[in-house]
């Protein structure tokens, strides 16, 4: 590695860490209710309002490649099963804060928590 390589490495690392710090601030918050939106092939197919203590529920969503199972529990939501080869969406696990997003690229399913419609801990 040349000196310039090292400078580039440091620069990219700083930008990445700054982005990560901003990310923590923007994507982590306490809520009283979460508005979950599920899109398949670009269309909204489900809108759910989750509150603390919500019982476990499972939804079957038809994606481009086949059926996916979305699970919700309390304020959290995750992709439980998906027909995609990479399983990235399943491995990502639970999301529970406004703006957090799960994307399954092969199956064209997007799950996210809408910030406008979710009640945060302070105003709620």
């Amino acid at each position, binding site marked *: *590695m040349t000196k310039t390589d090292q400078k580039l490495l440091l620069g990219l690392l700083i930008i990445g860490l700054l982005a990560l710090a901003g990310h923590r601030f923007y994507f982590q918050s306490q809520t009283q209710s979460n508005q979950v939106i599920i899109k398949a092939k670009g269309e909204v197919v489900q809108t759910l309002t989750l509150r603390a203590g919500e019982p476990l529920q499972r939804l079957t969503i038809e994606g481009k490649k086949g059926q996916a199972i979305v699970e919700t529990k309390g304020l959290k939501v995750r992709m439980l099963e998906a027909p995609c080869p990479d399983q990235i969406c399943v491995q990502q696990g639970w999301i529970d804060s406004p703006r957090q*997003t799960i*994307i399954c690229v092969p199956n064209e399913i997007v799950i996210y928590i809408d910030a406008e419609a979710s009640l945060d801990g302070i105003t709620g």
Partner: protein
Amino acid sequence: MSKTRKLVYFSLFVTLATALGFLETLLSNPLPLPGVKLGLANIVTLLVLYLYGLKEGLVVSLFRVLFVSLLGGTFLAVGFWLSFSGAVLSTLVMAGLIKYVSALSIIGVSMAGAVSHNVGQLLAASFLIQTPYIFYYLPFLLLAGIPTGLVTGYLARLLLRYFQGKDFLIINEK
């Protein structure tokens, strides 16, 4: 250099890149994030950029994206456009750095290529995937590009040293 000879070399480079790219779709992802991978095929793009130039690098990386998508059955699906955008952006960035920032070695160029590949994918995703919060993934994609770019950069350096001793590969006889 004859046209036939050139065609043969480029076919080999495209085949190599396709094989590496397809191999990677079979491996499980190191991180559960869409678009994060080692980027082994980028080794070939780097070599072609260093040995020949921008036009040749673009041709090889675009054919690679096309063939990998045909093998994986994702041609013209969302994932294809993500790879396509990542490949175009990273090839342009790497070619630009090779030309204008000579103080960077192949390792630095590879790192910049890996990061710009991830950013390119995310930019395409922000158009193609209808979610207001696509940049949720940005910091992870930025940071993931650094180690993957380093690894592929080191590998590309080893190969480039080998290839540069072989004058039979030089196509541009300027």
